């Protein structure tokens, strides 16, 4: 393992790392069909993990979960730890949400282009997050307050609020308000949009000519490798096929005209 670890960390400039590290779930909070997990990197791997930038993701596995790793974007990260925010549903996430503290995860990454390298940095943004899509949105908001005009976060049910202290969350079940509604309320000329969430939300964002010329969406795809090699995740764009895992996950709406 020592030698592998050295191989895996010979990455230039904090680029993608191929080492599978072990992380331990130290705390799990549940609510409204979601879970928020605090994961600390287990030694001997605590030090060399490159810090994930907002929008980047890890490829995650559990020993008894699915064989293919899954992409998960931290909602927060620091030295030797990350927090994940997941839907408590699906082969991996269902097991993760139910796993007792002390459970070990296999993590590889971080991968993907950070939001700040795709978005125009001369603008401020309404950040739109729906469901598990709030994870990279809140990570971004905390890291780059200078780029944030407002937040538009939405969920179906209120149970999730306990997992997102301090966040102003629209809950459809309470009063019919949604992330998209909040966007429409708060958006103003000159602002851009960065959105992450379910496909119908992203489609609605990209369909709306008010902001779509300055809007970006973080796409989901079923990933294989996560680092650009397997072509499991490619999508058509006007400038050729792009890989969601390395060319994204964030794309300008103009790059994905088929979405709207």
């Amino acid at each position: 393992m020592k030698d592998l670890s050295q191989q895996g960390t010979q990455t230039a400039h904090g680029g993608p790392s191929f080492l599978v590290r072990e992380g331990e779930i130290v705390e799990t909070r549940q609510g409204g069909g979601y879970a928020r997990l605090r994961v600390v990197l287990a030694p001997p791997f605590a030090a060399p993990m490159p810090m994930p930038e907002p929008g980047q993701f890890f490829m995650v596995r559990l020993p008894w979960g699915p064989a293919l790793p899954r992409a998960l974007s931290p909602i927060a990260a620091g030295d030797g730890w990350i927090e994940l925010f997941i839907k408590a549903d699906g082969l991996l996430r269902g097991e993760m949400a139910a796993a007792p503290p002390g459970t070990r995860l296999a993590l590889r990454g971080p991968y993907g282009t950070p939001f700040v390298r795709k978005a125009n940095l001369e603008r401020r943004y309404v950040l739109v997050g729906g469901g598990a899509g709030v994870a990279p949105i809140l990570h971004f908001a905390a890291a780059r307050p200078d780029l944030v005009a407002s937040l538009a976060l939405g969920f179906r049910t209120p149970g999730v609020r306990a997992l997102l202290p301090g966040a102003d969350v629209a809950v459809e079940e309470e009063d019919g308000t949604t992330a998209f509604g909040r966007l429409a309320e708060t958006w103003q000329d000159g602002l851009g949009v960065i959105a992450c969430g379910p496909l119908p939300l992203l489609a609605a964002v990209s369909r709306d000519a008010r902001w779509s010329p300055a809007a970006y969406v973080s796409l989901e795809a079923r990933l294989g490798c996560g680092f650009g090699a397997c072509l499991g995740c490619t999508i058509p764009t006007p400038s050729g096929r792009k890989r969601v895992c390395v060319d994204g996950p964030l794309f300008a709406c103009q790059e994905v005209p088929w979405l709207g």
Partner: protein
Amino acid sequence: MARVDVHSAKGSFRTPIVLASGPAGFGCDLARALDFRRIGALTTKTITHEPREGNPQPRIVDAPCGALNSIGLENPGVARFRSEVMPKIRALPTARIVSIAGRSADEVGKVAGALEGEPGVDWLELNLSCPNVRGETVADRPDAVSEYVRAVRAASSRPLLAKLSAGGGLVALADAALRAGADGLTLVNAVRGLRIDVETGKALLARATGGLCGPAILPIALAAVYEARRAFPEAFLVGTGGVVTARDAVEMLCAGANLVGVGFGVMADPAAVFGLAEGLERWLDARGVADVAEVVGAAHRGGWRVP
């Protein structure tokens, strides 16, 4: 340290571990951080004459102990492969096996011909068995296998592997490929499979069926290699399918493989794949085996350990 270099009449390999066609792409992403000296060869993603977009999303889904893919041979076509990809991979410190395919013997001949002058193309692998494109799974008819292999043979002087599927008729197809001039066989391609989204009742993959890869198919690939080795004691065989650990690789070697291909493993844990050769060395050392060649085909001669 045990020797793990592999030598055939047509070429040598630093280690028996080969990146199988597909999951590693063209190796460029991996090369940024991993040491290709630990890999015997990089097999490229399959190249066709014209560029291809592949199948629609989703094209990779779960399977128990594996995955199902229907990428569908997305690739830039042989011209851009030569101009854009070869310059990047020519200097990799490993052998390059360029995988090719086509809708006709004529097309595969053209692709092979286009690569003939290209430095750094060490081997060709003719993909006769992709489960994810229509009209190109020729590998279930020996006459078609012959025709395709002959077309490549006529157009190319490179050592040539013919890649086949597991399943009935393997020996006849392998025989056709070897007689038509293939220098070896790659066994196996992903196995045809399907998954259904139970919430809708529709197939999960946009193209319905796909290819099953990963540990689930290890026993199937082992049986195919075993059968081929029994039928062709002298053939050069690349055993591919379900290998993720050094122990799996040993099984594949004992079944009769000269080289061991890894596909799914590159997606699951790429650093581990680059560590396989070292794992193999340690495994051999711990048992006092001086050369990996001693275990190749051991299952056909009563085992490598004579107690």
